[in-house]
C-alpha cells in the first residue's frame, strides 16, 4: 500500500506528463481502464488552466484565433503548471512563451498584446490599498519635501512595448475594424503606466521623460533627486499621480 505522499506524487506525474502509468497500479479498473479514469482528471486540470488563460488574454485569443489559442495554451499549461489555487496569478510567462513560438500565427505583435493583457490583469487583481490624499502631504515640513519617498499603489505597473499593443487590444476587443485598420504597427515603441484607480483600470501612454519620472516616483525614489533630474513639469506630474490614485503612501527618507 503506497503512502499518501508517494501516491500523490505518482498521480501528479501522470497529470503533468501523462506518460508515467505507475499510479495506474493503485486504481480499480472495473469497466474503465486506469488511464481512462485518470484522463478525466487530467483533462479537467488542463482545460481549467486553458480557460483561465483565455480569461486573462481575450485580445490574444481574438487575434490568434480560438484554435491556435487553445493549442498554444495547452502547450503552455503542460510546461507551466499552476503554483497556487489562486488562478488569477496563473499565466505570467505566457507572453514570453508566445514570443518563443516559431509561428505566432503570423501575428508579430501577439506577444506584446499578451504582455499588455497580463499587466491589465495584474492591475485588476492587485490587492486593495488606500489612495494617498494630497492633504496628507500638508503635514510634511517644506524643508523635508526633498526627502519625500512615495509608495506606488499595488496595482501600478510600467511597460515598454515595441508595438502599440494597447491600441491593438482596444480595437480587437471592441470589434472595431476601422480602429484596427488605423493601427500603425510600425509607429515605434510605446511606454505605458497601468493601474487601477478609483475610476477603474487605466493604461496611459507616457513620453520618455514622464515615463522615467513616474516610474521612479512610484518606485520610491526621493522627490528631491527626481526633481533635480527631471523636466520642469515635475510638480504637474506629481499632482497628476496623486489625482489618479497611483500613490498609496509616503515616508521621509532619513
Amino acid at each position: 500500500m503506497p503512502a499518501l505522499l508517494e501516491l500523490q506524487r505518482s498521480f501528479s506525474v501522470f497529470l503533468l506528463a501523462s506518460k508515467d502509468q505507475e499510479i495506474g497500479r493503485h486504481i480499480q479498473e472495473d469497466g474503465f481502464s486506469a488511464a481512462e479514469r485518470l484522463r478525466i482528471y487530467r483533462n479537467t486540470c488542463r482545460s481549467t488552466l486553458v480557460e483561465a488563460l483565455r480569461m486573462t488574454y481575450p485580445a490574444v485569443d481574438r487575434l490568434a484565433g480560438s484554435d491556435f489559442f487553445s493549442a498554444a495554451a495547452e502547450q503552455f499549461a503542460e510546461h507551466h503548471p499552476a503554483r497556487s489555487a489562486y488562478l488569477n496569478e496563473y499565466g505570467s510567462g505566457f507572453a514570453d512563451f508566445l514570443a518563443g513560438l516559431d509561428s505566432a500565427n503570423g501575428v508579430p505583435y501577439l506577444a506584446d498584446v499578451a504582455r499588455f493583457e497580463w499587466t491589465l490583469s495584474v492591475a485588476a487583481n492587485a490587492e486593495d490599498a488606500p489612495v494617498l490624499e494630497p492633504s496628507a502631504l500638508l503635514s510634511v515640513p517644506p524643508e523635508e519635501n526633498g526627502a519625500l519617498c512615495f509608495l506606488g499603489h499595488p496595482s501600478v505597473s510600467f511597460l515598454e512595448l515595441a508595438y502599440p499593443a494597447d491600441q491593438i487590444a482596444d480595437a480587437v476587443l471592441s470589434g472595431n475594424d476601422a480602429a484596427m485598420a488605423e493601427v500603425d504597427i510600425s509607429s515605434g515603441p510605446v511606454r505605458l503606466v497601468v493601474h487601477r484607480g478609483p475610476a477603474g483600470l487605466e493604461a496611459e501612454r507616457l513620453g520618455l521623460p514622464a515615463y522615467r519620472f513616474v516610474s521612479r516616483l512610484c518606485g520610491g525614489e526621493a522627490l528631491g533627486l527626481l526633481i533635480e533630474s527631471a523636466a520642469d513639469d515635475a510638480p504637474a506630474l506629481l499632482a497628476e499621480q496623486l489625482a489618479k490614485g497611483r500613490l498609496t503612501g509616503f515616508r521621509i527618507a532619513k
Partner: protein
Amino acid sequence: MIPSVHGQAGGSIPAQAGIGLRFQHHRAVLEEKPRVAWFEVHSENYFGGGTPLRYLDTIRHDYPVSLHGVGLSLGSAEGLDERHLARLRRLMERIEPGLVSEHLAWNAVDGTHFADLLPLPLTEETLSVVGRNIEVTQDFLGRQILLENPSSYLRYRHSSIPEWQFMAEIAERTGCGILCDVNNIFVSACNHGFDARHYLRSLPAEHIGEIHLAGHRMRSFDDGRSIRIDDHGSRVCDEVWQLYAFATERFGQVPTLIEWDTDVPALSVLTEEAAKAQAIMDAQLRHARAA
C-alpha cells in the same frame, strides 16, 4: 470553542435555498435585488482586490454569504499552503461569512497546484492527514468549517473505508460539519455502483450543515460505456431531486445551495431551481409537523 453548525453569529445562513453566485450575476444581484435567501461564492475568486471584492462587499450587506473553497487541498499529505490559509482568513475577516466550506480532496503536491478536486484513497492514513489539516484550518480561521463529499471517477485498490463512514468519522474527530452534496453522491453512486440512499442514511444528521445540488452530464464512449461527470452545467436532474427529498426527510431543514458553474444561465433559471428546492424543504416541514 468552535461554534456549532447552526446559528452562526453574524450573517448566518438560513435553512433555506440559496444560490451559488458567479461573476456574471454580480451586477444583476445588485440592481435587481432578487428574492434569494443567501449566496455562496468560491473563496479563491475573491483572493485579489478590485471589482469582484467590491461587489461582494456590497452584496453581503443585503444577503448572508457563505465562502466555499476549491483549492485548500485538505487531503495533501505534506500539509497546507500557509499563504492560501492566510488569504482565506483575510477574506473571511472582511466578508464575515455564515459558513466556510471545503472538499474532501487534494490538489497540491510539491508546490504544484492542480485545478481539480483530486480523489483520495480512503484509509486510516488519509483519515489522520485530513483530520490534521482540518484541525489546522479550524484553529487558524478560529471557526468550524464544513467538509464536502466530492464526485469521483476512480477508486483506489487500497481504500478500506466507505466514503460515508469516512465523512462521519472526520466530523466526529475534528468537530467539522458535513456539506452533503447530493448530486455528488448520486454521480459517485452511479459511477461506482453503490446505493446513494444507503450513503445518506449512514451520514450523521447532527453534523449536516449544508446541502449542495447541481447538474451533471453523462459522458458516453463509442463502445456504449458511459460515466457521469459533475460539471455543474445544467439543471438538477429528477433522480437527484428525489434523493434530495429523501435527504430532507433524514436531515430536516438545512441550508441548500444550487450550484451552476459552466454555461452559467440567466439568474432567473437559478432562482427557479432554488424555488424548487425550497418547495421540497417546505413540503418536508409540513409533513414533519403533521406527523
